């Protein structure tokens, strides 16, 4: 089994871990952790793509952009979490049940 295949499988496992963590957690800030873990694996995939195709410069440009966008997402998510904390006094997702239907 070649090295890129192992990296691919390990990355897929990591993405699965991140998605499960994102969905299963009850704490608002742990969602950021799940998202970040999955994003690590995705950036490694992009670099692996550059490695395999000889387009490392392009892959690095992609990775830099992805990292910037991911940081902005994390900031917005923490902003919403903190505002919700100020409203409800807790970071528990189960408090968010007022919209129904």
């Amino acid at each position: 089994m070649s090295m890129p295949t192992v990296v691919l499988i390990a990355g897929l496992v990591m993405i699965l871990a991140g998605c499960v963590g994102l969905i299963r957690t009850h704490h608002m800030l742990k969602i950021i952790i799940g998202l970040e873990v999955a994003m690590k694996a995705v950036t490694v995939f992009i670099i692996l793509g550059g490695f395999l195709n000889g387009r490392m410069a392009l892959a690095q440009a992609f990775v830099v952009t992805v990292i910037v966008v991911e940081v902005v997402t994390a900031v917005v998510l923490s902003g919403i979490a903190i505002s919700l904390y100020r409203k409800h006094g807790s970071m528990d997702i189960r408090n968010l049940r007022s919209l129904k239907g």
Partner: protein
Amino acid sequence: MSSILNGIPYVFVAAPLFAFILNNAVPRERMRSHAVALSGGVAALQLAAAILGFALLAASGRGEVRFGLFWSVDAAGAAYLRVNLVSLFLLLCVGFVALASALTAAKTIDDHRCSFANLFMALLLGMNGMLLATDLFTLYVFLEITGTASFVLIAMYKSSKGLEGAFKYLTMSALATIMMLTGLALLFMHTGSLAFADLGAAALSGASGEMDILCYGALALLISGFAIKAGAAPFHSWLPDAHQSADTAVSILLSGIVIKIAGAYGFIVLVELFGDLYAVRLSVAALGVATIAFGALLALVQTHFKRIAAYSSVSQVGYILFGIAAGSPLGLVGALLHVFSHAAFKSTLFSGAAALHEQLGTLDIEQMGGLQKNMPVTGFASVTSFLSAAGVPPFAGFWSKLLILISLWQAGWIGLSAAALGLSILTGAYFLRLQKKVFFGPRNPRWDDVKEIGGTIRASQIVLSAVNLGAGLCFPLVLLYLQSIGLI
């Protein structure tokens, strides 16, 4: 003429950027009263530029206009920006809905006007960027910008419900981002480039003539990611919460254009690139039928005006997906026209919601009734919205649905075509229920003194109803024109 045509695309990027800078450069106290007007001005400018650009491009016979902001588009492998007829039409829709939203916002946004204008410009930039991109990665970047601006717009007043709606939307969107990026990374591993020109079913097959399991996985992930962003069933759960809890001006933007550009346009791109693969089109069609059904059935049991409208948006996006899935030029035209007619009638409906909220203070339809006498303009606008949504001629909705049904028929999916026709009866049903409960039926004595809304919301309702009816009356001309250029 050609220099005007070459210059027009810059408007779509430069105008919102310039307005953003202006909004922040002028001191807040002076800017406050003009912020929404500035946004409205940019939206009107975009609408005008898109109409002009569409007419010029169609007349000149060029396929597309390429441009770059500060870089040369002819450099090898450069990711240039471009406008073609499809993107100009969608840019027109963006400008149209943005204008409707700005007209409503003039009345409903009382606080944080400068922030609203900032985010509005960011949202416009995000959507315009998506439509101008020629590379899947650029599409992704501007999709994220659109999403971020939407989350913050929904949560802008930091009300409990607004924050909750934004949070749910953000979580689902994060999942969608992970899926889409994984799909993009797998495609990149296979082809080494993400430009539209370099992708396509042929490129994926490679030397062996068969597709890798990696490519199937990539396509499945991309389709799922865009489905979540579009609010297609079974991933639609975030949409009603987000649209209901946002301020009405923001709901107009979300329902009217964001779900279509962020979601449906992604499908347009996917089918354009990979439509030769039957599996891709079939999955889009499957998503379409599930979405129409879920949206319509869930809309029948709601009691909050905006929630009914949100589920209705979910349902109508299903029709757009049908048109895209058919894969033919007629299907694409039907889908695009449905984007326009849905933008028109949904904006009308949400303007009516804004009017009701301003005058009554509540949006619970169980408490309303018999408002036709008090608010005749709102009632009339709502009726035009209902007739257009249900697909009654001569309104715009009738023509777009007809084209979609015909394209499905031509693609050989007779069963789906019949299902779409049948499900539109459900559309009529939930809208009829809405009309009956709000405007007709016994009047709740609480509302005896309620007056009609004035100002910009009344104006926007009248204009939008006129567009609904006028577009419907003009459609046969559009069809004749399309036939003359040989599209149908």
